[in-house]
Structure formats: C-alpha cells, structure tokens
C-alpha cells in the first residue's frame, strides 16, 4: 500500500477540491474552530497563501491515489499545534498509521520539540485518539481541551501497547512526504 503526504501547495485542482469537500462535511466542521462551510474561492486563496509560509504545513493524505484526509502543523508564537482529519469511511488502520507517520515526520524531519493539540470538549473520540498517541492534557477551558506531546515522550510512547499494535501494518506501507 502506498500513502503520499502531499503538500497543499502542490495539489492539483481535483485534489484541492477533494480536500475542501472532506473539510466541509458536517462531521468535520462541527469539530473545527472555524465551522462555517468554506467556498472553493476562499479555499483556493487560502491554499495559495500557504506557499512560502514557513509557519504552516498542510498535507493531503493520499492513499492508493485517493484523497483520504489531511494533516498539518501550525506554528504560532513559537508553539506548534497539529491537526488531522479523515474521510468518515477511512480504514482505522490507515488513519492510525498516518497519524503515526505524520508525528514521526513532525519530530524527526521538521525537528519540532513539542507539539500541541486543541480538541473540542464534545469530541471525545479525538480526545482519546490524542491521548492514545501519548498527548497529555495540561489545560482546559469551557470549550476546549489543550494537550501536548514532547519529542522525548513520543519516543517513549512508541513502545506503548496501543502504538505497538500498528507496527505490523506500518511495515507494509510505502510512504512519502512530497
């Protein structure tokens, strides 16, 4: 199986449209900070704004030539926050493996030392997904949970029972960041 993490700046028109289509689904929007439907025009403008922006990195996740989701990090005031979403029907093995590969890329290619995560309180599945990858809750307010994962903790957590369970599948995946 081949998975390509393709930088938004290099997406073709169709791929860009497919990302927008997933992003505008109700089940994704309700868990986003900005939850209005995004127009194609605004989406295209925003993607163009990412070119040469060193503080934001967005990838489309393309599995066997099908756009399955997106992952990203954003740097704001020296703090990095990650985000990830998938089509509703994505195979959970694929989504778990993609999250693992993206976190590896964040810590070992992009050299991020600490990654934050912002999760809406009602999004219990995303909260446990983050926790199971080793993110720790450090703050909460009325609407959000704030979690963080440091590179050293990621290294240690990679041997957890939960993360080890995806290793056998990772071995069968060919992937690239482009």
């Amino acid at each position, binding site marked *: 199986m081949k998975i390509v993490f393709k930088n938004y700046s290099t997406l073709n028109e169709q791929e860009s449209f497919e990302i927008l289509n997933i992003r505008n689904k109700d089940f994704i929007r309700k868990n986003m900070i900005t939850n209005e439907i995004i127009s194609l025009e605004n989406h295209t403008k925003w993607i163009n704004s990412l070119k040469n922006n060193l503080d934001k990195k967005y990838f489309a996740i393309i599995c066997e030539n099908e756009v399955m989701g997106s992952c990203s990090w954003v740097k704001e005031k020296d703090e990095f926050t990650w985000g990830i979403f998938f089509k509703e*029907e994505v195979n*959970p093995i694929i*989504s*778990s493996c993609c999250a693992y590969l993206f976190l590896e890329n964040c810590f070992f290619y992009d050299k991020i030392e600490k990654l934050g995560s912002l999760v809406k309180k009602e999004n219990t599945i995303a909260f446990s997904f983050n926790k*199971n990858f080793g993110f720790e809750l450090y703050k909460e307010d009325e609407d959000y949970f704030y979690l963080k994962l440091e590179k050293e903790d990621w290294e240690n957590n990679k041997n957890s029972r*939960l993360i080890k*369970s*995806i290793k*056998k*599948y990772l071995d069968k995946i060919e992937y690239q960041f482009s």
Partner: protein
Amino acid sequence: MKDKIEKIIIETLVELNEELENESLENPSSITKLYGANGGFDSLALVSFITDLEEKISDEFDKEIVLADEKAMSAKTSPFRNVESLTLYIKSLLEN
C-alpha cells in the same frame, strides 16, 4: 461457539479498557458500542483491540482469522459497531 466468542470479546475489552479508562466501555455486554457512531473506540484503540482479539481467537479455536479485512473496516457496514455484530462476524469467519 457464539457464547465463547462473546466471552473472549468482553474479556479483551475489559483488559484493554484498564489502559484506556473509557467510561463507555466499562461493564461491557453484547450491546456495547465499539466503533463508529457513539462507539467507545478511536481508531488506534480499535486497531489494538483487533490485534489482541485475533490472537485470543486463534489460541482458543486453533484457527487464524483476519479481522482487519478491508471490507470489514468500512465504517458503515463494519462488524465493529458493537459486541454482538462482532461476535456474529467472528463466528462466520470461524465457520468458513
């Protein structure tokens, strides 16, 4: 066979939930929701659960089964919706 499979599923759930500490998976029964709409598992927890379960089923019934089949993992028709649907799915795999 059905009862035995369900017992293994529930034992596996209880063991895994010692780590997850997920309230919706406490005291599991045949109607406990697993994955998808209102399910207690996120995708990583489901993969871990599948790995443990495949091993236990193989030990108990002396037959290798693959639960992580491409079709089975599709969210809408997934046998991982709840304990009962998973029990029936495993039973059908063992009988084939």
